[in-house]
Each structure stands twice: as C-alpha cells, then as structure tokens.
C-alpha cells in the first residue's frame, strides 16, 4: 500500500529472532485460515463411508452425490433468494449512498455534522443484530411485513448502508473541489457534475462498497432466520443452518451446502478482494 522511504526493518540477531517468530505466527494463521475451508471442500466430494474413517484420510474416492442430494430440494431457490437480496441491497446502497456521501462532502446544510455522526455511529450499531432483531421483528409484525420478499433486502440494506456511505465519503474527500467548479463553469448542473465527473472517479471505492454490502447481505443469518418463514423466501445461510439439524452428522451434504454457500463470496473476493482490503485500510471499520 505505502512505499516507505527507508527500510524500517530492525537489524541484528535480535531482529532475526523477532522476524522468525513473526513469520511463524503469520504462517500458522494462514494455515488455520485456509485449512478448514479446503478440508470442507475435500469432504464434500468424498464418498460417505470415507468421511467417517478415523484417522481422517485426505485422498480417496470422488463423488458428487452429496451435491446432488443438497441440490435436490429448495436449496437452489434459497441460493437464488440470497443472490437477489444481496444484489438488491448492493445496488440500492451504492446508489443512495453515493448521493449521501456527495452531499456530506460537498454541501453545507443544517445538522450536517450531527447527521454524519449518526451514520458513523450506525457502523458499529449495525453489528448488534441480536439486539435489534427483536424490536425489528415486533414492529415489522405489526406492519405485516414478516415473511414477505421485501423485508430481508430492506434489512440488509440498512445493516450495510452506513459502511457504504463512509467508504464513498472517504473517496470523495480525495477528489478536488476544483473539478466541481470547472464543471459548473462549463455549464453542468449539479446532478450532471455528480454523475459524470465525481462518480467515475470513485469507481474503486464503489467497488469496495459494493463488495462490502454484497458480502454482508449474503452472509447475514440472524434476521434471515426469523423474519421469513417459508422456504420460498429463505436465504442461503438459514438453509445451511437447517441442514445442520436435518442432516445431523451427515457431513457430506453439510459440507457440500457450505461449499455452495461459499462459492459466490470466494469468487468475488478472488476477483475484487484488493478493493475490499484497500477500502477497509482507508480506515473504515466494522467487524
């Protein structure tokens, strides 16, 4: 990310020990991070009888029966639901988030400071789903919105919007105001300036914000498990969770469903992960 003018590495034997300790620590973390995912994928294509051998074996037969078993049912529908929810939340979050970020960065209006403070406060607040989901559930029940296709996209939008606004606002801070002024002199309206001058310059941050919202929506479980009941509207994480009780100790179909639920996120992170990392490194934070 940053180029240092000087090599900050400490030198000497002491430093070598430190470096080895750090290297060992980092290598262990990588291994622990990646191993359960690879093991899960390996299990999902193993014949059932091999899964339960102990000690565990790495190589053996290959089968797709677990995938067939998982896909035979409403799981595909649940995958598609999550895809639709996440894409809706992402598109709306980036669209309305960009407007808000632009206004916070460029306009002066009453309570601006306080309102932006609310958005920043909502970044950690949105992590408290276990707390918020009860009052949410109770008043959405009153409004008759439970078990409808709009409830989850709306919630996922709300949970991830604060972060999207913050990422986009950070990007707009870096765009010189002189560009806006030049556009105004050339006769562009404010909306035109926003759409054809500012937005194209924010593309990397828009990618980061999109990725953040999509992953957040795709991965959400707590609201998904209580706000909708019918399998018609069920998101994928809830479907995976229900397999845990349905399949019990049948780890073949369980890991197959986990692998399918992972796939979109892995693809996105492989393709655009650097944008996400860069966006997060700019100081925007949420766990």
């Amino acid at each position, binding site marked *: *990310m*940053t180029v*240092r003018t000087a090599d*900050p590495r*400490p030198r*000497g034997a002491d*430093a070598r020990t*430190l470096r080895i300790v*750090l290297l060992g*620590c*980092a290598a262990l973390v990588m291994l622990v*991070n*990646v191993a359960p995912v690879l*093991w899960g994928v390996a299990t999902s294509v193993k014949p059932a009888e091999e899964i*339960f051998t*102990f*000690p*565990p074996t790495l190589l053996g037969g290959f089968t797709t029966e677990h995938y067939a078993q998982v896909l035979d049912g409403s799981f595909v529908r649940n995958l598609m639901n999550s895809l639709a929810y996440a894409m809706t939340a992402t598109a709306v979050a980036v669209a309305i988030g960009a*407007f808000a970020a632009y*206004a916070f*960065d460029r306009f*002066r209006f009453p309570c601006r*400071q306080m309102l932006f403070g*609310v*958005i920043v*406060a909502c*970044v950690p*607040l*949105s*992590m408290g*789903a276990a*707390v*918020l989901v*009860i*009052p*949410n*559930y*109770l008043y959405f029940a*009153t409004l008759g919105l439970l078990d409808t296709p709009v409830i989850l996209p709306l*919630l996922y939008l*709300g949970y991830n*919007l604060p972060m999207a606004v913050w990422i986009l606002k950070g990007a707009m*801070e870096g765009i*010189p105001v002189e560009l806006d*002024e030049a556009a105004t002199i050339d006769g562009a309206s404010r909306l035109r300036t926003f759409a054809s001058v500012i937005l194209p310059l924010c593309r990397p941050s828009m990618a980061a914000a999109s990725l953040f919202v999509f992953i957040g929506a795709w*991965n959400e*479980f*707590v609201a998904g*498990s*209580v706000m909708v009941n019918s399998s018609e509207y069920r998101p994928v994480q809830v479907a995976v*969770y229900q397999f845990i009780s349905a399949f019990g100790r049948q780890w073949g179909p*369980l890991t197959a469903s986990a692998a399918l639920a992972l796939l979109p996120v892995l693809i996105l992170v492989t393709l655009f*992960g650097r944008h*996400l*990392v860069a966006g*997060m*490194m*700019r*100081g925007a934070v949420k*766990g």
Partner: protein
Amino acid sequence: MTEATLRPSSARSSGASGSAVAPRRQRRDLFGLLYIAPVMLVLLVVLILPALFAVVYSLLELKSVRPVGFAGLENYREVFSNPAIAAVLVRTLVFAVITVALTLAVALAVAVFLDRLTARRATLVQILVILPWVISTIVGALLFRWFFVTDISPGVYLLSQLGIEAKPLTDPTLSMISLILVAMWRTLGFAVLLLIAGLKAVPGEFYEAATVDGASGWQQFRLITLPMIKTSLTITTVVLTMSNLNNVEAPLVTTGGGPGEATQILPLTIYQQAFTHFDFAGGAALAAVALVLNVGLVFAYLRLAKWSV
C-alpha cells in the same frame, strides 16, 4: 518525492486526509438534506427506531408479538429471577475478555509482520488473512467445527497423536475453548487489517532514527510502534468487543450453547429467548441490557474513529 506524496490518504488514522485537502468551498444549500434523505430514512427504520424500541418493548406487557399493556420492570424481574441469567452474563464477560485479548495479541504479531511485506505480496496475503471474515459465520463455524472440534476431525486426530485425548463437545472447558477459537478465527483477519492501517501511519524515519541510535527490534516495537498505534489498538478493541458480544451464530453452530450451559452466552440467550422459546418480553428485556452495552461501545467508537465532515 516527499513523504506526503508517498503516503497517500492510505490511513485516515494519520489524520492526513483532512488536512491534505485545502479548505473546502462548500455550497450552502438545503438540497443536501434531499440528497441524504433516502439514507437517513433507511437507517431510521432499520437501525435507529429498533434501538429505541428495544427499551420501549422491554417495558410493555406482550401477548405473543402484540403489546397489551404496560409492564413496568416486570419483564426484567422475571428474566433476572432466573439464576441461569447471571451465569450467562458472567460467562459472556469471560468469553469476551479472553477472546478480545487473544485476538489482539495474535493480530498485532501478524500485522507487524505483514506491514513489512512489499505491496504486491501483502495484498495476496491480506486476502488470505481476511478469508474467515468474508465467510459467513454460519459456514465458517461449521467448517471450523468439522476441522477442529468434532470427534473425528483432523484437529482432534492431531491432538491424539500428541497424546492428548480430547472430546471438545462433551467437555465444558474444551467447548468454551473451541468457541473462543472460532470467535478468534472469525475476527482475526479483520483486526489485522485495522492494525496494519494504524502501522502504515507510523513514519518510517522513527525506526531509522531508532536504528541509528542502536535500539533493538523489541525496543523499537515497545517504544515506537505500540505508543504510535494506541488509537488503532483501542478502536480495534472496541470493534472486536462489539462483534463478540453480538455473535449469535458462532455459539449456535459450534457448540449450540452446550454441553449443558457451558457455552451459553448472552447473544445466543437473547436469540433463543425470543425465537426458540417465543418469550418476546423476556427477550426484549435482555436485549435492552445488551443494548446498553452496545450503546456504550458505539459512543467509544464515535470518539475514537477519525471522522469529520
């Protein structure tokens, strides 16, 4: 090139992004309110109102999901008369403190290491590091359980080769350790990224000067790095605490709260109170207690995060 151009607005924590830009000539107009209206409306409905209603509902008498009267503190009295709840609160505290402390320590070591990698290699490694964070907690905890926790997992096999016979899911202490490890696994990479952002803001000259003066690596870390990233460390602590105090999925999938009540922590209890036992009044009372904790952390975050408009 000067230091300033070499260090773009990579870290908000450096405070550079605010001062690097010339004083803004903002237009004064009320259109701004129109531009932010959709965002504020969504946040109001999804986050702000429920936060307020959490307290309101806890004071109401609920028949299923419908308020039928005012209950005062009756919901609280009922929930807290259950001795198991006190145990849950203590357990939650122990879980959160240990998890956050361990995560911070490991994350700091990894961040210091990654900070020294070249940019190209760092990006790849960073993506690997945040992998468990981009995986949903449901899937992550499931895979973690299958790899480390179940009786026939490679992790348990490895331990047995070392002469340790462990059955984590039936032993209360081991299942709590498993839960802590899942929680660490889930949030570590994210903590690493936050800390790297803090480390990037430490000027390289400081280390240069310290090296000239003969300071050892450990001395440099203790006397330069740690004090310089204090804010990053604090904010990482706040976010990690928040994340672990609200995590329903990890205990639900890894241990289900068991054996017995050994890993029953507050977020799981709230969730089950409302949506397994359908005791919304009791759930709301517990949620209101958790909300107080959350709001405290939100204010800490608001003070620590570098934001300005």
